[in-house]
């Protein structure tokens, strides 16, 4: 019980922090899609989407957690894995300093939030990338957390849900970042061998090494409207081919047209869509939040 309470406190704090970050100018916010001024309560009710133009505001990993999971069911796992600076990397700033700043800014110690949760009653493992943490980039920590979480999904025989929002590989960790693509993909092949489900959600933006690994390896792939999704970024492509890019290029709807994803789903429908997929592919059903916590305790996490 004590565990549960402290965890609930942490969770409340997380929500408060998230709101503070998203609402720097007080009660109103301008839509980046249509310039409409939106009252924050309305924005929150619409899960941070614009009711006029459907623009999806970028939200934090903690907010996605609340969008996707059953109330109070999320238990964060693998919290103790933190980045080091394996190359002693320095560009305009030291990588070590960038890490400290990112931790301070987000209140988290990595670019991915991992845990177990109930989703429409189903127990699932969930990894949510946090764009606010160094652009949601994948280095050694993200690779390790996703690989371990996938292994836990195999051990518990539950589905894996990943939500990506990332600029790609973390350049400051050099080749080790690249290797995380192989690491996560290999563990997903194991999940596949075990007959378990991976639902991949692609939010804005999903590019680079993450797209070229786990984010594209969902049994079912769901994207948010308007999300930029691709291997190379549009600027790199433009510089390479020296011509204009087609309208809507690399947006979720474009990928749907080209057969690369299964559906584009409004954030308000996102959880329902995921639950329906899990409903279809799994036979086990239902449980309570207490079970989730019990499971986590059993694993000593």
């Amino acid at each position, binding site marked *: 019980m004590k565990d549960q309470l402290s965890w609930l406190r942490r969770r409340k704090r997380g929500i408060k922090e998230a709101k503070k970050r998203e609402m720097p100018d007080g009660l109103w916010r301008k839509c980046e899609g249509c310039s409409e001024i939106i009252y924050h309560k309305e924005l929150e009710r619409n899960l941070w989407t614009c009711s006029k133009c459907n623009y999806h505001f970028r939200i934090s990993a903690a907010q996605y957690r609340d969008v996707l999971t059953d109330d109070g069911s999320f238990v964060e796992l693998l919290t103790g894995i933190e980045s080091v600076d394996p190359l002693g990397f320095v560009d305009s700033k030291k990588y070590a300093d960038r890490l400290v700043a990112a931790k301070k800014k987000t209140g988290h110690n990595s670019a991915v939030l991992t845990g177990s949760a109930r989703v429409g009653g189903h127990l699932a493992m969930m990894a949510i990338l946090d764009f606010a943490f160094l652009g949601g980039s994948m280095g050694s920590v993200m690779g390790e957390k996703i690989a371990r979480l996938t292994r836990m999904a195999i051990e518990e025989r539950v589905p894996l849900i990943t939500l990506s929002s990332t600029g790609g*590989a973390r350049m400051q960790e*050099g080749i080790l970042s690249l290797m995380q693509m*192989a690491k996560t993909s290999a*563990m997903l092949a*194991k999940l596949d061998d075990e007959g378990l489900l991976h639902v991949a959600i692609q939010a804005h933006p999903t590019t680079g090494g993450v*797209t*070229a690994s786990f984010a594209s390896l969902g049994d079912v792939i769901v994207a948010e409207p308007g999300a930029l999704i691709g*291997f190379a970024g549009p600027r*790199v492509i433009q510089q390479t081919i020296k011509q204009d890019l087609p309208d809507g290029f690399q947006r979720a709807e474009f990928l749907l047209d080209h057969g690369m994803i299964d559906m584009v789903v409004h954030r308000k429908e996102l959880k329902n869509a995921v639950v329906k997929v899990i409903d279809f592919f799994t036979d086990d059903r239902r449980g309570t939040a207490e079970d989730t916590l019990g499971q986590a305790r059993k694993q000593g996490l």
Partner: protein
Amino acid sequence: MAGWLEFEKPLLELEQRIDELRSFADSQNIDVAKELHRLEAKAEDLRRQIYGKLTRWQVTQIARHPRRPYTADYIRMLGVDFTELHGDRRFGDDEAMVGGLGFFGDRKVVIVGHQKGRDTKENIRRNFGMAHPEGYRKALRLMSLAGKFGRPIITFVDTPGAYPGIGAEERGQAEAIAYNLHEMSRLPVPIVVVVIGEGGSGGALGIGVGDRVLMLEYAIYSVISPEGCASILFRDAARAQQAAEAMKITANDLMGLGVIDEIVPEPAGGAHRDPERAARAVGEAIARHLSDLEAMSPEELVRKRLARLMAMGEFKEV
């Protein structure tokens, strides 16, 4: 001296002088042994001076040397009786990626590799070794054949990167690479990867998952090109030298980071100075690793391949 690197030129000039002196002496029947000996010693000194302390940027230039042996050169020099196979059966045949069936010594192996062009005309056909999704899918089709028939796989990595273009994105460049990583991790046959030149990012890794990853002494392998890293992190593509240093992209660096298993030594000055010798070293290393791997059951291979990947990365647990 077209097609040679700036820092190679003093050595090349000296070597040219030695050759000239030798043929002059031969034709005139003069004894220049002493002078030749002196020049040879000087050349050896110069060689040590230049190649003893190459910067990572200089290594990058050797890795991209226009005279460097490419995949097809190694296949030929290794004496492989090679039948090239074509197409991904879905969209087209990508000539930036070659693949086929090889009789290699006593072995029957499937070989796939990036292929750069030797001149402008061939480079247009080969897209400078930058594959589209159909290239990765062709490679996987052939590797799956190897899996089906129990033949080992050799891959040669040599690409600036997967092609960043409209068609490539439309046809799922990211998915093609991701799926290759996924499938290569569980193919039930030995896979030996050799980075022969440029290991450019996901485009390299797309055929780079194996039981053993070897790298030539002057090859590079990186998460993004030095130029790309420079333009993003240093806000100036011209600072590629600095980015190359920061990212640590040489065979020595990668050996230290536990990403590769062996450095294949190159002839003094690089593989292009003596391609046959480079190929012999490559062939010997591949054969040795295949012998090791062939002793393992498919289950053991796949289990160890996964364990090898799981060990990649550095982090702390608090």
